[in-house]
């Protein structure tokens, strides 16, 4: 809890590197091999998500060229089995990179599908976490800071969300709100980005149902920090509630919030994959869960279309979990076992 003022004073005196809270945490984080490994995975996922469409072998789904692996099979008759195993296992295609992870029953390339799905994974992870954290910080702050009956009511509500198997309600709500989606993509005119409508609805619903456990964590932290002496000092200096919450308590919780956000991203990606896999996702956006769902019924033959998207999910979530654990070790060393 070294406050910024003492940090600055030290800096002025000795002219050494400013040992701010973040610099210390980064130094500690660098030594954690698992955390660095997680960071590398996460950075790779973001990289593929942003630039993936430039190096994917085949274009994304609505483009007819996405089905090119299908036309490759027999150019004369156009018939034949479109379900090709990964090319490195295929005796017909020795040492070929044509379809690294095999092709699906509709003739698309699994490898390209996974690359194009990455951006949706990033979108889901980040946006769900933003919504979840905004809600849980608001609820946690109000409950933890004001206490008494406000706290009581908010915590009872959060209990309802915790006790109830929320995936069940998420499924119904997702179905209700996506069943009549008009335009599959919304165009944002100035920055020229297409936003998938159905997926965004799924994201908002996931965010609305997942705030409870994070809110309880933040409330606990608020309760702890609220009683510390510097808050009392601040109050004696005449600071109002809003100022105390935003300028003094929240900055102190920043490290916990960052750690929890990283773990929430991991959880959100898993949850979206589950919703899509169960067939409730947006059919216009081919997320990793959607690939699993599409090929589920032909799993006996096209096992590669189930294995590789799953590995992509597993690695991404593993990366975010490692990053979260590493950040937690680096920022809250007293929590280490």
């Amino acid at each position, binding site marked *: 809890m070294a406050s910024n003022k003492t940090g600055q004073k030290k800096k002025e005196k000795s002219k050494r590197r400013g040992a701010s809270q973040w610099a210390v945490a980064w130094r500690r984080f660098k030594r954690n091999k698992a955390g660095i490994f997680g960071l590398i995975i996460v950075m790779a996922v973001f990289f593929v998500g942003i630039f993936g469409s430039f190096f994917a072998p085949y274009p994304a789904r609505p483009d007819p060229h996405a089905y090119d692996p299908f036309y490759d099979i027999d150019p004369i008759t156009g018939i034949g089995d479109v379900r090709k195993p990964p090319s490195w296992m295929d005796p017909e295609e020795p040492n070929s990179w044509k379809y690294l992870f095999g092709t699906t029953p509709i003739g698309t390339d699994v490898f390209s599908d996974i690359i194009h799905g990455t951006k949706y994974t990033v979108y889901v992870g980040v946006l769900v976490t933003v919504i979840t954290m905004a809600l849980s910080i608001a609820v946690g702050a109000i409950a933890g800071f004001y206490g008494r009956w406000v706290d009581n009511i908010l915590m*009872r*509500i959060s*209990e*309802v969300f*915790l*006790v*109830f*198997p*929320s*995936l*069940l*309600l998420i*499924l*119904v*709500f997702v*179905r*209700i*709100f996506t*069943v009549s989606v008009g335009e599959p993509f919304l165009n944002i005119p100035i920055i020229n980005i297409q936003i998938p409508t159905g997926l965004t609805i799924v994201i908002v619903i996931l965010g609305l149902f997942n705030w409870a*456990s994070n809110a309880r964590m933040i409330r606990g932290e608020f309760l702890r920090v609220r009683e510390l002496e510097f808050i009392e000092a601040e109050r004696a200096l005449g600071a109002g509630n809003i100022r105390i919450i935003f300028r003094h308590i929240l900055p102190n919780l920043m490290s916990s919030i960052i750690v929890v956000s990283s773990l929430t991203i*991991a959880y959100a990606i*898993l949850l979206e*994959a*589950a919703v899509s*896999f*169960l*067939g*409730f996702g947006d059919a216009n956006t081919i997320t990793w869960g959607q690939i*699993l769902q599409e090929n*589920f019924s032909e*799993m*006996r033959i096209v*096992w590669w279309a*189930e*294995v590789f998207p*799953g590995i992509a*999910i*597993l690695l991404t*979530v*593993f990366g975010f*979990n*490692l990053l979260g*654990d590493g950040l937690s070790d680096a920022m809250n060393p007293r929590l280490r*076992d």
Partner: protein
Amino acid sequence: MFRYIVRRLLYMIPVFLGISIISFFVMYAAGDPLNIIRLGRPNITQETIDALKVYYGLDKPIPIQYLTWLTNLLQFNFGKSLYGGRPVNFLIGSWVWETVKLQLISILLAFAISIPIGINSAKKQYSKQDIAVTSISLFGVSMPTFWLGLILIIIFSFQLGWLPSAGAYGAPYLWWDNPVLDEIAHLILPVTVLVYVMLAQNIRLIRANMLEILRSDYILAARASGLSERKVVYKYALRNAIGPVITYLGISLGAIIAGAPMTEYVFNWPGLGRRYVDAAMRLDFPLVMGINMVITVMTLIATLIIDICYVYIDPRIRLR
């Protein structure tokens, strides 16, 4: 003890009411329920619509409708499915058992396995075994439940052909030639999935708690007084380490049961979760609301049982 149970029961009422309100308004989130009827019958007359409105009680104010629904619910009258028109409680009754069977076996097995592994891991902290266990369990937290099921099916059912890939029973002549063994054969894969997912969390928790407790003074005192290592660990340390794990189980039961649709969908298990996915897909509201409430009550009962177990393990709780 009796008073404690009563207090816990009273405490559950607001949670139950809260969930029932959310479940009820799911139907209204979809808009006017009469539109669903209109959808299938484009030639329906206004008089019929009005008559149906009165028949279903939709002309009354929403709070009254909620109360009617709730009182019906408490009398085990869940209404009728929109598809086929069979009463919901009749439908649910045959599915509950399969889900309970699957979940109960998995939870018990997960505990039986995770306790010794967690303890051993804590006793030999940073040994090779410990590092293996902790990294495998972190992997387990990161794995999509349903995907593990898919992989197991691909390996053990499709490639090796050892175990059935779907359903809860059937084809006994294929699997081990006996109806009971057949049921066990069908249980193995889904139980493995559920246990693995629960193991990961349980081991992490037990290990963390044991580490803290094994360093405490009273364990040192117990060792100093010459008790056997076995007695120190299993009688004195475990009893304190298991508490948080049980608390965690109580909190996460909702999530565990929410995982049921995924596992049951993958293995085509004839349980509540599998049917829930179908019902939600078709927006069969009476069935969705009915299953919602049954699962809620199941979760609440399980939480109560866990709370009671907790009092036996840590008698200080009752005094608070």
